[in-house]
């Protein structure tokens, strides 16, 4: 069993293992965020996904996010595990667990973590549709990247 609070794994994530890392006698609240593979996005059907990471840098960025959270909310404890490789619909891509004495901070710090993951952690998602594949870029602005989209006519929406 790993004792690291930040991990990139290529096997299914055990949510309980991530939760247990943040258990504390001073915690009244634990929030867990689980990112899962969704089938339909804007009318397009995803068959499966592939995630790739730059693992050494991703771990450093997780640690930076944790440091930022510690500065904002000193009593919060954070653990993050992200999966890479082939994922099917409903599979878990990422688990973020945050504990805190009070619940408001546990929610805020958790949401802060996922927002920052999407900004600074080098992990990439490749979508597999029935009519093509694409490395998705910059979801924050919903700009596909690069231009390699399946044709509009192929949409199932």
């Amino acid at each position, binding site marked *: 069993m790993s004792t690291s609070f930040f991990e990139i794994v290529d096997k299914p994530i055990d949510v309980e293992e991530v939760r247990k890392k943040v258990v504390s006698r001073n915690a009244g609240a634990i929030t867990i965020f689980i990112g899962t593979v969704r089938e339909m996005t804007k009318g397009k059907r995803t068959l499966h996904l592939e995630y790739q990471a*730059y693992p050494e*840098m991703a771990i450093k960025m997780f640690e930076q996010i944790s440091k930022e959270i510690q500065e904002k909310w000193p009593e919060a404890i954070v653990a993050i595990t992200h999966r890479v490789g082939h994922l099917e619909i409903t599979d878990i*891509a990422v688990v973020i667990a945050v504990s805190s004495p009070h619940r408001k901070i546990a929610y805020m710090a958790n949401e802060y973590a996922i927002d920052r993951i*999407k900004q600074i952690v080098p992990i990439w998602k490749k979508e597999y549709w029935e009519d093509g594949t694409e*490395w998705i*870029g910059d979801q924050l602005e919903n700009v596909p990247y690069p231009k390699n989209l399946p044709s509009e006519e192929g949409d199932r929406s």
Partner: protein
Amino acid sequence: MINILLFAHLQEAIGQSQLKVDLSDYTVGQLKEWMENQYPQLSLQNMMTAVNEEFATDDMIVKDGDTLAFIPPISGG
């Protein structure tokens, strides 16, 4: 010698995830140009980069032994 890492569509575009090149003391920006000359299929001008696992700007100098990674727009989470 510097170590260059490529991910996602960049990796697929040139069919390699890692290059070792003899180009120390280039800036990040100069290395982008060099890569684009070697691999015209790459477009790196607005690409984020990391040197030794920290985000870097185009004017940063990459030294012998450093690792330079091109970071396409990320989509984790």
